[in-house]
């Protein structure tokens, strides 16, 4: 039988606020264990939470960008469960009255637009981190330590409708959502570091049927690729079970990136009774219209709009526009450059070609480079003027990026300016012809490719500094003589 997959996602995004959701502690990642803590986020007796307004603002901003409805009245609730990384043994979250209800995001799949509904967006606090001594996990360890630095870091949970039908769609949705969050400036979108996390509810049903099958929840997908891999594996597992007449058990399953499979974590019977109830230490959130309007004005151009504009206003092909807008920082750099440089396509070629290749090798983002858009444009201008060759520019760019230096410095130091002076070039060409009599004869006897060998020799003799066009012209003329 053919099955259709029904997938809904629950996404947790750490919000980029300076301080935690219910206290003034810093949210900075990577600080020494238990250095960003206070009585509130360590759950001392008697402390009370105070809601960080910026956190609400970020969630409203996201809600508006996803075309959801900002609730007139939203309430925090306690989710009760015991775990050592949760100092109060309850998590302040939202349950019945989330901050944003509804919304959607359109994802383009195989050229078609797919509408994926958003059920809700709510706010909650992150838990701390356990470190186990003497082993990678709890098992076999000699002791466990708790680091509360992450406790109280604001999390925004986005829940989708079960509108997703394939692992590919899920991956594309996650990528687009990540982009949106980064564009909004509310999340850094780093799945590997856990600032963006995703769980999935998956069930299968016979193709064409309406009723939903029994679902499982898949957790621990730490990259876009693993979202796709985990869902493929889970769908395959469920299809095999259904195919052999077995029933799906409602349970939570953990994905293992190494084996590429999911394993059971806990069954429905073992599921917690979280005993949610309204948090009595916080008052309901009632965002007034004026504030929501102000927040909506802070939403700048989103990825799709930017893509369309780059294609329309700057004549970029769709592929270029896609690559550039997929990384907000790259797009920002591109647009800064465009203020100083007219040839958008040439700029795009350099950026998605050599520059991106460099970033990949160095495993860094464009934000980490230490040259400015103006310095980058200086280099393009020197190429356009013919001062340096396209070829030598490649090496020069690497030197600029490595050392954070200007193109003029490097050119002056290495004498890497292009040689366009005809008399100087002619001298070199005469030498090359003298040293390569066979190629000269070959060319003269009609073997045209011999010309390229000779040009190559000229470039070699000038360490790549010869203006290739001028060299070619002069060489052809010399060979005719």
């Amino acid at each position, binding site marked *: 039988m053919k099955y259709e997959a029904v997938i809904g996602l629950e996404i947790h995004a750490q919000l980029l606020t300076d301080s935690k959701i219910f206290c003034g502690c810093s949210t900075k990642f990577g600080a020494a264990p238990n250095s960003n803590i206070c009585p509130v986020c360590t759950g001392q007796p008697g402390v009370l939470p105070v809601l960080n307004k910026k956190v609400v603002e970020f969630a409203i901003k996201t809600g508006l960008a996803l075309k959801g409805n900002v609730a007139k009245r939203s309430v925090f609730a306690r989710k009760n469960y015991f775990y050592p990384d949760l*100092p109060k043994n309850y998590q302040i979250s939202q349950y019945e009255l989330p901050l944003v209800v509804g919304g959607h995001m359109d994802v383009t799949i195989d050229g078609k637009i797919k509408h994926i509904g958003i059920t809700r967006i709510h706010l909650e606090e992150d838990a701390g981190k356990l470190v186990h001594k003497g082993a990678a996990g709890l098992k076999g360890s000699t002791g466990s330590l708790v680091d509360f630095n992450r406790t109280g870091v604001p999390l925004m949970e986005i829940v989708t409708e079960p509108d997703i039908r394939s692992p590919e769609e899920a991956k594309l949705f996650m990528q687009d959502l990540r982009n949106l969050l980064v564009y909004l400036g509310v999340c850094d979108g780093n799945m590997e570091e856990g600032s963006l996390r995703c769980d999935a509810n998956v069930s299968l049903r016979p193709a064409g049927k309406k009723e939903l099958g029994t679902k499982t929840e898949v957790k621990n997908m730490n990259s876009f690729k693993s979202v796709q891999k985990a869902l493929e594996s889970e769908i395959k597992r469920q299809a095999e079970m259904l195919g052999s007449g077995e029933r799906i058990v409602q349970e939570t399953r953990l994905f293992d990136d190494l084996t590429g499979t999911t394993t059971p974590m806990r069954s429905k019977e073992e599921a917690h009774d979280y005993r949610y*109830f309204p948090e009595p230490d916080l008052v309901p959130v009632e965002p007034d219209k004026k504030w929501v309007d102000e927040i909506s004005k802070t939403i700048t151009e989103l990825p799709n709009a930017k893509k369309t504009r780059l294609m329309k206003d700057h004549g970029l092909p769709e592929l270029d526009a896609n690559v550039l807008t997929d990384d907000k920082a790259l797009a920002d750099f591109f647009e800064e450059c465009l203020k100083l440089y007219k040839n958008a396509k040439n700029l795009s070629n350099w950026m998605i070609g050599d520059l991106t290749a460099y970033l990949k090798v160095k495993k860094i983002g464009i934000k980490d480079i230490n040259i400015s858009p103006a310095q980058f444009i200086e280099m393009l201008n020197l190429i356009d003027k013919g001062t340096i060759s396209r070829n030598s520019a490649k090496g020069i760019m690497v030197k600029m990026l490595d050392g954070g230096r200007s193109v003029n410095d490097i050119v002056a130091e290495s004498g890497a300016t292009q040689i366009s002076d005809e008399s100087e070039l002619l001298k070199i060409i005469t030498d090359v012809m003298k040293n390569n009599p066979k190629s000269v004869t070959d060319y003269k006897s009609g073997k045209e490719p011999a010309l390229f060998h000779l040009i190559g020799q000229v470039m070699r003799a000038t360490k790549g500094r010869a203006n290739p066009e001028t060299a070619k012209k002069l060489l052809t003329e010399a060979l005719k003589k």
Partner: protein
Amino acid sequence: MELFELTAHELHAKLDRQETSAEEIVRSVLGRISRVENSVFAFMTVNIDEAITKAKEIDEYITSGKKMTPLTGIPIAIKDNMCTRGMLTTASSKILRNYIPPYNATVVEKILQAGAIPIGKTNLDEFAMGSSTENSAYKVTKNPWNLGTVPGGSSGGSAACIAADEAILAFGSDTGGSIRQPASFCGVVGLKPTYGRVSRYGLIAFASSLDQIGPLTKDVTDAAIFLNSIAGHDPKDSTSVDLPVPDYRKSLIDDVKNLKIGVIKELLGEGIGSSVKSSILEAAELLKKLGAKVEEVSMPTLKYGVATYYLLATAEASSNLERYDGVKYGHRSSEADDLLAMYYNTRREGFGPEVKRRIMLGTYALSAGYYDAYYLKAQKVRTLIKNDFDKAFSKFDCLISPTAPSPAFKIGEKTDDPLSMYLSDIATIPINLAGIPAISIPCGFVNDLPVGLQIIGKAFSEEMLFRVAYTYEQNTEWHKRKPKL
């Protein structure tokens, strides 16, 4: 008269006239503590050295001509469920036997700023759960009027230390009557302010939507002075209300003429002792004589108060007490090989029977399948009770009732009967559910044990309560009696 016998406003006047010093006051109070504490057992901790050091600092401050507040140099006892930085804070529970807070409760910070001197931490029913202070894991506080009876609870240590002149002012906290009922039993003044009037930051939570900190004092004037310095919005407590704090001393007016006072019918009926009832009716009569218009009022929903309270308060408590798990602070069982055993054993060893009972009740009320029938239903009844009060306050300026159904009962009398213990809060609980203020003042004696009159006002009407209480006090002598110790 000895210094320890005086009120805060009397001591302030003496300090102002330089007739005494903070050190003399502190030494007088410490001397009193050393003489009577081993029969009263009001304190968990007494700050002997710190209090004397602080008093000397205050005296230097005063002699340097700096401005005094009404609390400067006044020894204050703090209920042991309020966090004091660097000072043991146990909530009278074994589970916090070694807990030294890294921070001060906002109210503690406020009295320190005002120049008051923390004299010690007082005993309470474990986590403020109880009506007799017998649920303390450490000691049973005795009622100074009769050492064979309870001081009430949960602020029994605070009420007893005021009655026994072991402190000038004391902090209490009130979730279902924990300030007013012990005030009634010990013959002192106890005020539960409007929910949100005083910051809860640093008060070890029992039931967050009901808890409120308030004063226990020797007279109404001291209660007004004390509230002046602790009331107000606190950015650290989102449920504290951002309303200006009036000068409550200005409402100490000896005049109730034409005030409309309702006597709550349901709180003079079944379950209320007849001698208590006659004390209250005499008080009503006196207020009438002083010019108030006194009438009976019926509030039919009040009978659901105790049931509603024991669902909501326990539900919140079950969650508030989850943090005591042996991981971060306090007691940790040494009998555990894994995480679950650590949780189980730590909590089994650390909590007393009444706390366990309430955790179980509350957990049950919030559980899947029971939430609607218990927690949600109780929330609805809470609204009905609130509405009943709103209705009453559309006709009356304030309401009166007994604070407790009986005077102090014998130690051990109700420990085996939780339900009858719960019913000793029948008159105070509805006030917490409605979030409104109420004050208990001495209004008579039955078998040489004090009886308390409860005066109830609408939200943020503490001024009205002070006015009526002050008028009653000025026209009676009850508050001047002292127990023989």
